């Protein structure tokens, strides 16, 4: 898939110089979308280019999220940065630390004579991509939220009600055991992205702190991880216990577990709402529920946005910034947002697009598609649920994944695992802050 895209991009690069020279301002957009989501990128860019003749958006696929971020950084260092770059949620802290390299989206829009009305956008998402003073730094392009998917056929076979997805983690454990013991499926539960779902969103959804200083969002000091609190330890001990007899099956650090669920091996699955496309395509008899919460904590609160946003690099010409502003204005349009939301499973970022999708009856025909939005917007975020922002969140995730793997292999218990994550993570965070 990626290789094919690369070839297409390479071909496009060679084809470009052959085009007749027009007095058009070219704006490059580096992205990390594949499959159905890459088609959405191409269509949006193509449609924008067709609506006007002053600017031309040129989307370029740059690999996975981390690869795209790295390509952008390397290009910036070489003085060849693109105008727009898609950066995944955990790269947000990295980009925010790069003041001087980036141009805040709020400034791009106001300099171009446009007004940026924050109240038009979904509040949780805008807050996540803003500075503490409220200046929006990047444009939310694709936002997602983790939800629960169930295989209804397996539920029926196991004697569970297929219309009742689990609401709490205790229900997940019980149902998973029942699925395994009844022989309805070889495994009860699997999950993608343990770090994003079981640490970052677990903390926000249950209203418990991930780290001090408002999970790193508030200035004033070096945040310290709070992940070895009892609520986390108990949660992961339950997971580790279920892993022993295969009731919980580990798929990998990112979205590999999707294959396990699609193969019908497990009955319950937690994954990004952005992963819906592939599940629909597989023809499975699936059900959707909100992310489970922990009954020992203060949840359910609200989930935090995942996905990615579009960053604008600094040092470009005024004409280029005008083009970027025009493009952002275009993708904020209700019909574009509606298309993005319904085609990809990502969240609409404007309230108008959300309302339009609602009135169109889309959620009636596609039950569960509203779940990621309601669980993110249901409640005003608390200090624990605005998001997590560390300058080296990718590294902290890596550390957590390594320790999880040791735990799931039976080498250490949950207490030791969470302690190790906190200790190693804090050392890495201090280092990243220049300690």
């Amino acid at each position: 898939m990626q290789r094919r895209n690369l070839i297409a991009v390479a071909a496009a690069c060679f084809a470009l110089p052959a085009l007749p020279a027009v007095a058009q301002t070219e704006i490059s957009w580096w992205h990390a979308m594949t499959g159905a989501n890459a088609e959405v990128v191409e269509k949006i860019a193509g449609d924008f280019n067709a609506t006007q003749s002053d600017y031309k958006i040129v989307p370029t696929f740059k690999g996975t999220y981390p690869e795209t971020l790295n390509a952008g950084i390397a290009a910036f260092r070489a003085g060849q940065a693109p105008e727009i770059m898609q950066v995944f949620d955990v790269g947000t802290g990295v980009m925010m630390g790069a003041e001087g390299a980036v141009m805040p989206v709020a400034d791009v829009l106001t300099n171009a004579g446009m007004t940026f009305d924050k109240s038009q956008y979904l509040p949780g998402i805008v807050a996540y991509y803003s500075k503490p003073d409220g200046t929006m730094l990047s444009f939310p392009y694709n936002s997602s939220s983790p939800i629960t998917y169930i295989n209804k056929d397996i539920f029926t076979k196991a004697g569970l009600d297929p219309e009742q997805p689990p609401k709490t983690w205790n229900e997940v454990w019980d149902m998973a055991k029942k699925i395994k013991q009844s022989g309805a499926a070889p495994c009860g539960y699997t999950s993608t992205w343990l770090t994003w779902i079981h640490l970052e969103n677990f903390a926000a959804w249950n209203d418990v702190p991930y780290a001090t200083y408002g999970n790193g969002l508030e200035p004033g000091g070096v945040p310290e991880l709070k992940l070895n609190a009892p609520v986390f330890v108990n949660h992961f001990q339950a997971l580790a216990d279920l892993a022993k007899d295969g009731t919980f099956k580990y798929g990998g650090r990112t979205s590999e577990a999707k294959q396990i669920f699609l193969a019908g091996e497990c009955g319950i699955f937690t994954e990004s709402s952005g992963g819906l496309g592939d599940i629909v395509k597989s023809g499975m008899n699936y059900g959707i529920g909100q992310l489970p919460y922990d009954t020992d904590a203060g949840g359910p609160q609200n989930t935090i946005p995942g996905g990615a946003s579009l960053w604008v690099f600094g040092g470009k010409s005024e004409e280029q910034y005008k083009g970027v502003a025009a493009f952002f204005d275009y993708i904020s349009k209700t019909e574009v947002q509606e298309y993005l939301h319904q085609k990809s499973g990502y969240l609409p970022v404007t309230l108008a697009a959300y309302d339009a999708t609602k009135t169109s009856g889309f959620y009636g025909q596609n039950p569960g598609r509203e779940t990621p939005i309601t669980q993110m917007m249901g409640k005003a975020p608390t200090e624990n649920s605005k998001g997590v922002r560390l300058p080296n969140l990718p590294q902290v995730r890596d550390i957590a994944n390594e320790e999880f793997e040791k735990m799931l292999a039976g080498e250490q218990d949950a207490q030791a695992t969470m302690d190790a994550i906190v200790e190693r993570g804090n050392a890495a965070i201090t280092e990243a802050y220049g300690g």
Partner: protein
Amino acid sequence: MNRSTFPHRLLPWLLIAPQLAISLVFFYWPAVQALWQSMLREDPFGLKSRFVGLQNFQKVLAEPAYINSIQVTAVFSILTAFFSMAIALLLAVQAEKIVRGRGFYRTLMIWPYAVAPAIAGMLWLFMFNPSFGTLAAIPRALGIHWDPLLNGTQAMGLVVAAASWKQISYNFLFFVAGLQAIPKSLLEASAIDGAGPVRRFWTIVFPLLAPTSFFLLVVNTVYALFDTFGIIHAVTSGGPGKSTETLVYKVYNDGFVNLLIGSSAAQSVILMVIVIALTAFQFRYVERKVHYG
């Protein structure tokens, strides 16, 4: 003589200029940059940088993860070099015995060398995928709980297998050539004296193959150390835990995932020193000691 070949003093320089330019651009320039970077502390974008001397090296060498990575690299390299050479030698000796279709078998044996490391990694990953891998049924049938995603030893086994498999072809080629250079008269004479095939192999063939074996040992070590990044990236990404994170993989992971540019540069400078040492060792010591028959 020289004068007549090169009428001008500048001509020899001109002739080697392309090679020099390539070395300068693709080796010396990046190497000097890495050396400079390894002494800086910098944010990912290079907006702020500070000279810290050898601090990055100190930190890297004191890091438990780095020590772990050295151990992982040692285990991985020794196993990969051993298996790829041992299996290639066995196959080469067996291929020598075939009278009909020798060329056909040899051609088949050489094919895997054309496979890119990342593709080789993917092949093995799919074949041994615990869920749908065809060959994963074998360990399962043997009663082994096969899960290379969580079991570090099994993950190491998988990357060693993939890395060795890819290198067998190359070694096979050299061993076949080495075997052909062994005088048949020696083997025949010992056969007449009553030495069996096993004895003939250990007393005549193996010692006479020493130059080839030494050459391959160096090549295979360098291969296992530096050329297996693609395989590890595709199969395990250094996991589970850090059980397959080799030195080269750690350079990539720290530099490109964790964005610790200074530490990553320091690690690559250390690797550069290792390569220089290995090469010097090969030229100064190994080449002289080995008896070229």
